[in-house]
């Protein structure tokens, strides 16, 4: 069969699989199929059925899990989606990330970016979600983020497995002259009970791949699931307990050289000049290369080992262009204060808060200001990428969350077309949003253009990482509330002044993109919470600062969850109500929310007196389609406040792997607690002050509380899991600090005002 014919047939299958997956849109460009990228990389004897499955002649099955494995267990659950329908055990398959391709566009990530609450089922919201699907397909954005991977894949990848299974049965039916309906599949083989014949998938693969693939295969009902819904042994666990070289930083290629970068600490500003003679004279140093990009500017040292490069980089004297904008915390915060003075644009505006506040008696009112700082991601694996440019072909190995973006950016930098650039997505030693950026891969590509065809691995120092992040933006909130006779809130007004992440991020991806409209991320976690208050306004004001900001685990929810849930606690206190009871009343219309609130309260022993010297705090945040309540219990020790226990109840609609979800929930909470207790990024002289884990630390083993986690499944839709544990953690802790000490700390990190053990 000729190449063109093959592609057409494959293309048909992708279209069919998409339809079977329930994502058909009456829109020509959307329906136009995307080629199966696996066609180009089949090994001898291997057959592919769709972008998610390859079967070798020997029966080896490879499942492509096209999302970045950065700890969240996504490759295991993605593989289980296909394996479930393909009747395979997870230990029978190999999982790989696969190539960068539009075939793996993430529709759910885009849908979550729309300005609707997750419980908004209005026709407008649904139409917009469908539209995001079309847009996602057209852009072909292969992104791991927004806790969307499994939601996006749930139908698609099961449909891919089901289609492959039925096609294998068709091949067996033909071979044996029997009806496909009389065939069964199990453990990687097709069998015919009446005749006792069996054939492995491997034996049938080549014949099956030549057939018109089965379409519209019904997906198995939940009752029939063997893998999904049950804890699986993670497919990446053995590699991770044996120290296998699976990370970007472990890439090793023949004749490879090593490099590190030093970029202008005045973020984004140019390098005026550099003197590299001393560095070049050092042992092991091969080259010093200037780097100029739209993201950052500086130089790279290329050397025999990473250490030679790191050492020599200290010896390069660079003269940096400084910024003209605000240079330190005080000047930056002045921008926030100024912005907070203007009205802002509301994303929620129920009733009329202005009227409600106009005649409010003083004792029914509360007014306060909250602040959260900039934060670095500090992924455990320092930033790195490896690039190899030879004969007009570029290969980039990068631990990254956006391979199609990396491919397009690097290809453009190297002056080749995207088809000549191959992106290899390695395992990620943490991502948290940092690795959705293209800077590391871009710099590595520019260095590879100067290494005469030798591959180069570019590893950043930790100092470079902390000082050149795209930070979680700082934010300032002005909050007001009025309580009624019964103590319940009758008016809530929350205004957030913060930089727009989208406005900072999109020009890094698309340097020529014009300004964008409203950015829902600025108010995520505040405008879309399931509370009914008669007069309720949530508004945002954009702050312009020179600090690049980006996606940080749970994005706007990490900021606004803190503001909103501390405000709720303050309201309950003013109204003389129990914070849990008050929330339950406000949430009466949202039983799923009330369900997790009750569950977390019950696990924590809420309502029963805490042990002597202990206190508890409560918070709730709906995010990424899931519903999460957390209770933090703390105690006063001589050395400071100790975290005792965290109770988490999360409703995720459908829990595909409860053990992985449990891990994500406490992981997310620890991430949020680490930040709340002690993390901040400060600026002085136009540069970031912090530099390494000695001044930007995170929770350590002795500080880690006990966790109790409950995963519920009452929500009507499946929600995300990778980020949802983070938003309620900080406010629950701050509310506990208030309960313990009587101090209302309205500024993170809490360590600015109270000591932790």
């Amino acid at each position, binding site marked *: 069969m000729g190449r063109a014919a093959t592609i057409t047939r494959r293309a048909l299958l992708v279209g069919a699989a998409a339809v079977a997956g329930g994502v058909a849109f009456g829109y020509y460009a959307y329906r136009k199929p995307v080629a199966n990228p696996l066609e180009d990389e089949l090994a001898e004897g291997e057959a592919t059925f769709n972008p998610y499955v390859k079967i070798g002649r020997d029966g080896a099955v490879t499942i492509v899990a096209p999302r970045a*494995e*950065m*700890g*969240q*267990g996504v490759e295991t659950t993605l593989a289980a989606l296909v394996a479930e329908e393909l009747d395979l055990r997870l230990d029978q398959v190999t999982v790989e990330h696969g190539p960068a391709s539009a075939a793996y566009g993430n529709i759910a990530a885009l849908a979550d970016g729309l300005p609707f609450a997750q419980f908004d089922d209005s026709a407008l919201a649904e139409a917009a979600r469908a539209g995001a699907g079309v847009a996602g397909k057209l852009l072909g954005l292969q992104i791991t983020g927004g806790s969307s991977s499994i939601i996006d894949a749930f139908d698609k990848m099961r449909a891919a497995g089901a289609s492959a299974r039925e096609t294998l049965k068709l091949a067996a039916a033909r071979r044996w002259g029997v009806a496909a309906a009389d065939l069964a599949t199990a453990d990687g083989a097709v069998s015919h009970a009446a005749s006792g014949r069996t054939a492995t998938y491997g034996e049938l693969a080549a014949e099956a791949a030549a057939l018109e693939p089965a379409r519209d295969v019904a997906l198995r009902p939940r009752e029939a699931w063997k893998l999904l819904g049950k804890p699986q*042994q*993670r497919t*990446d*666990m*053995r*590699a*991770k*307990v*044996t*120290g296998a*070289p*699976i*990370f970007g*930083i472990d890439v*090793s290629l023949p004749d490879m050289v*090593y490099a590190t970068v030093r970029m202008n600490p005045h973020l984004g500003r140019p390098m005026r000049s550099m003197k590299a003679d001393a560095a070049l004279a050092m*042992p092991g140093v091969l080259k010093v290369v200037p780097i100029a990009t739209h993201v950052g500017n500086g130089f790279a040292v290329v050397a025999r*080992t*990473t*250490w030679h490069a*790191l050492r020599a980089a200290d010896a390069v004297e660079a003269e940096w262009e400084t910024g003209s904008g605000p240079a330190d915390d005080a000047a930056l915060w002045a921008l926030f204060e100024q912005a907070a003075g203007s009205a802002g644009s509301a994303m929620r505006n129920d009733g009329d808060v202005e009227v409600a506040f106009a005649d409010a008696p003083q004792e029914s009112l509360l007014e306060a200001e909250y602040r959260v700082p900039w934060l670095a991601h*500090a*992924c*455990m*694996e*320092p930033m790195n990428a490896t690039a190899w440019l030879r004969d007009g072909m570029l290969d980039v190995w990068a631990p990254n969350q956006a391979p199609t973006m990396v491919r397009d950016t690097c290809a453009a930098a190297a002056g080749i077309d995207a088809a000549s650039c191959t992106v290899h997505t390695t*395992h*990620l*030693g*943490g991502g*948290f949003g940092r690795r959705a950026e293209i800077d590391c891969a871009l710099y590595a590509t520019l260095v590879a253009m100067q290494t005469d065809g030798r591959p180069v691995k570019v*590893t950043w*120092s*930790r100092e470079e990482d902390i000082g050149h992040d795209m930070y979680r933006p700082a934010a300032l909130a002005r909050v007001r509330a009025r309580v009624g006779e019964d103590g319940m809130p009758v008016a809530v007004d929350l205004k957030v002044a913060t930089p727009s992440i989208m406005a900072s991020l999109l020009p890094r991806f698309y340097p020529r993109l014009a300004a964008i409209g409203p950015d829902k991320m600025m108010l995520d976690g505040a405008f879309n919470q399931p509370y009914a208050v008669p007069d309720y306004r949530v508004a945002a004001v954009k702050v312009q600062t020179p600090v690049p900001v980006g996606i940080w685990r749970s994005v706007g929810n990490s900021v606004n969850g803190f503001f909103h849930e501390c405000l709720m606690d303050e309201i309950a206190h003013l109204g003389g109500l129990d914070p849990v009871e008050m929330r339950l009343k406000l949430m009466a219309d949202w039983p799923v929310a009330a369900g997790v609130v009750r569950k977390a309260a019950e696990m924590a022993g809420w309502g029963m007196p805490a042990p002597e010297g202990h206190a508890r705090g409560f918070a709730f945040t709906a995010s990424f389609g899931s519903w999460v309540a957390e209770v933090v219990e703390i105690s006063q020790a001589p050395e400071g406040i100790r975290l005792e226990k965290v109770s988490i109840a999360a409703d995720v609609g459908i829990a595909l792997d409860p*053990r992985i979800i449990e*891990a994500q929930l*406490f*992981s*997310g*909470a*620890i*991430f949020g607690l*680490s930040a709340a207790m002690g993390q901040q990024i400060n600026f002085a002289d136009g540069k970031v002050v912090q530099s*390494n*884990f*000695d001044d930007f*630390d*995170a*929770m*350590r*083993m*002795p500080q*880690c509380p*006990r*966790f109790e986690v409950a995963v519920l499944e009452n929500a009507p839709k499946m929600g995300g899991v990778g980020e949802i544990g983070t938003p309620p953690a900080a406010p629950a802790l701050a509310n506990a600090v208030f309960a313990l000490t009587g101090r209302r700390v309205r500024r993170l990190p809490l360590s600015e005002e109270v000591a932790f053990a």
Partner: protein
Amino acid sequence: MQVTVNGKTLDLDVEPDMPLLWALRDVAGIRGPKFGCGIGACGACTVILDGAPVRSCSISVGDVAGEVTTIEGVASDGGLHPVQQAWLDEQVAQCGYCQAGQIMSAIALLNDIPDPSDEDIDNAMSGNLCRCGTYPRIRAAIHRAARMQAGA
């Protein structure tokens, strides 16, 4: 420079002031020990030197006198060390990047204190940072490994 790693004596063409971490990773191709901070603050690079956990980023090859064990050298014949098995059973790792260092610290701890208390674990593991927050399962896995080794 000569160093003995996982029972083999390696002859490495490096300067004596090169940190052991980089000699292992970039010269010897032993990539289990990870680079995390370079200043002894994260534990990702932990190896065992004569029985004690050591941050390989903060010791020069020239100063290494004894036997170095890395994660690659803790198990025999492609099997798993009991601590690795406990890690697998408790499904500890998330991104996994810190885990080689965590496991090396845990092995050193258990060699020292076969049945550690929670406080012993706090003390021995506080130098190993995990940004994914796997601590609850690390604690459970250390207790499990202690039970496994006691039963064996």
